[in-house]
């Protein structure tokens, strides 16, 4: 093993622990997705709500900002005191961190809808719900998705750190690498899939974001 180069060591690790890496990959991914999903379930309504009650927006966004400034390791430790070790704590942390980008983007997206269009919609006899469904959400959906995309990339990073409190995942492989002598290849075996996951997620969501951009031209 020692006489192999870093790259061959990496290949060796993958060929022998392929399924294990894949499992950890899925685990990390799912934990991040869950966290962000909960973040979206809570954050999007909050974003819509504060866009209707503009006075609340500085308070809510302020709170979300404060959460964001807490270092993730500290947040994990604090939540661990209450929720204990394991994946739930990490999901909760990802949830908290995803709130800011999701709330902020939802809020911005809602406010970016042309007030004249809203006035026309209301004036033509749309109910509040119809205005929301047929005007506000379609016109701000791509901005909301951009927020989710930010939250997910952020969430993947936090999930990896989450292995410190026993959530498993790709972070475990990295930690093992740091503990081993000459564990460079093992660190890479954890870090490369993590990076890959973040990049792919970003690309996929940016594609979705573009698809959801309201169609405003009959060409193509």
């Amino acid at each position, binding site marked *: 093993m020692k006489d192999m180069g870093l790259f061959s060591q990496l290949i060796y690790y993958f060929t022998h622990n392929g399924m294990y890496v894949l499992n950890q990959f899925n685990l990390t991914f799912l934990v991040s997705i869950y966290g962000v999903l909960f973040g979206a379930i809570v954050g999007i309504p909050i974003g819509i709500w504060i866009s209707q009650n503009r006075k609340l927006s500085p308070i809510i966004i302020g709170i979300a900002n404060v959460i964001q400034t807490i270092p993730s390791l500290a947040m994990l430790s604090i939540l661990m005191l209450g929720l204990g070790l394991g994946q739930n704590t990490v999901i909760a942390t990802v949830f908290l961190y995803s709130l800011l980008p999701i709330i902020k983007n939802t809020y911005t997206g809602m406010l970016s809808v*042309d007030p*004249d*269009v809203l*006035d*026309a*919609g*209301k*004036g*033509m*006899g*749309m*109910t509040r719900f*119809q205005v929301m469904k*047929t*005007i506000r959400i*379609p*016109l701000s959906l791509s901005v909301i998705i951009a927020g989710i995309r930010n939250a997910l990339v952020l969430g993947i990073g936090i999930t990896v750190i989450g292995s410190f409190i026993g959530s498993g995942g790709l972070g475990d492989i990295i930690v093992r690498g740091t503990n081993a002598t000459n564990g460079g290849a093992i660190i890479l075996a954890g870090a490369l899939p993590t990076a890959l996951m973040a990049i792919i997620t970003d690309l996929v969501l940016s594609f979705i974001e573009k698809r959801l951009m*309201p*169609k*405003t*031209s*009959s060409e193509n």
Partner: protein
Amino acid sequence: MLLSMEHLNKEYPNGKLAVDDFNLQVDRGEFICFIGTSGSGKTTTMRMINRMLNQTSGTIKINGKDISKMDPVKLRRSIGYVIQNVGLMPHMTIQENIEIVPKLLGWSKEKRAKQAVKMIDLAQLPQEMLNRYPGELSGGQQQRIGVVRALAADQDIILMDEPFGALDPITRESLQELVKRLQEDLGKTFIFVTHDMDEALHLATRVVIMSHGKQVQVDTPNNILRHPANEFVTNLIGEERLIRAQPNILSVSQIMLKNPVAITPDKTLDDAIDLMHSRRVDTLLVTNAEGVLEGYVDLDDINRITDATTPVSRFTNREVFYVQASSLISDTVDRILKQGVKNVPVVDAKKHLVGIVTRTALVDIVYDALRGAPATDEEPASPINADIHAAATHEGGESSQ
């Protein structure tokens, strides 16, 4: 009465009175323009009609039904609404945009599609445009869609808030023709907010002039041009426009001098000469005892007669050119000027003499209308005018009515 607004008040929480005791009765098929400076409450008043705003007090009734007791959503679906910045949904095709209200009302897909085609024809745009998006249309085309969208569910009342304010003059004119046509051909009732006086005078059947939340004047465009209620209205209309409009709205009776110098046929030559001398004129109009115009006598004709007791009837020139007091200046000015006479007697419907129009006064009006500049006539423009003026302001002719 299709729409009646009574004692409307709108007070904002800061105590500012945006609309102050607004009253208006609107009949079916009328085209009402609200005009005023910004902050005059015209848009606020309009927005209360579809309950985009609620009045502080007062009632609005549509077909006799108090709208404050109606569901605002249903109310709005029955009233067309067009705003200045068009407000087409950018993510919907033109067809979807036109179909918004019909869809809200639950029309079937086929009926909606048929209506969309009908509406785009009404807007005089090609049917292919139905599949385009608003962003692909020019500003004028977008507003055309905006206008017909407000009619798509066959609304009777259309509210328009400065709909053409952002358009270039040529496009604006063609859109004005469109809405005028809709009002005249389809009998739609328009409530139209504008700050463009030309637009208001051109389109409206009645104009509501507003200032600081109060109605200053409510009348037809012609009456407003003819009798501006106060200085504010005059300023809003603009001196230029008033002068240009004069030949079209002024009647002969408004520019004539009243109490012309007249004499009855039974008087003698001496009396005639005395009267001419004392009033300093060279022609006398001859009227009978009832004041009916019979002719005129001229100083030149009198000179040839020597017998001082000759009755006036003997030398009355009976071929007299006269105009009706009620006729418009624009209709008579050509005839008067072509006659080449100095002044023209004005009669009422029964040929009673009621006044006299001087050639100078007419020429002034024609020039002003051409030039659009106000005349600087503190003093009468010519000696003839001065004479007549002096004569007319004197105690008055014997047969004045």
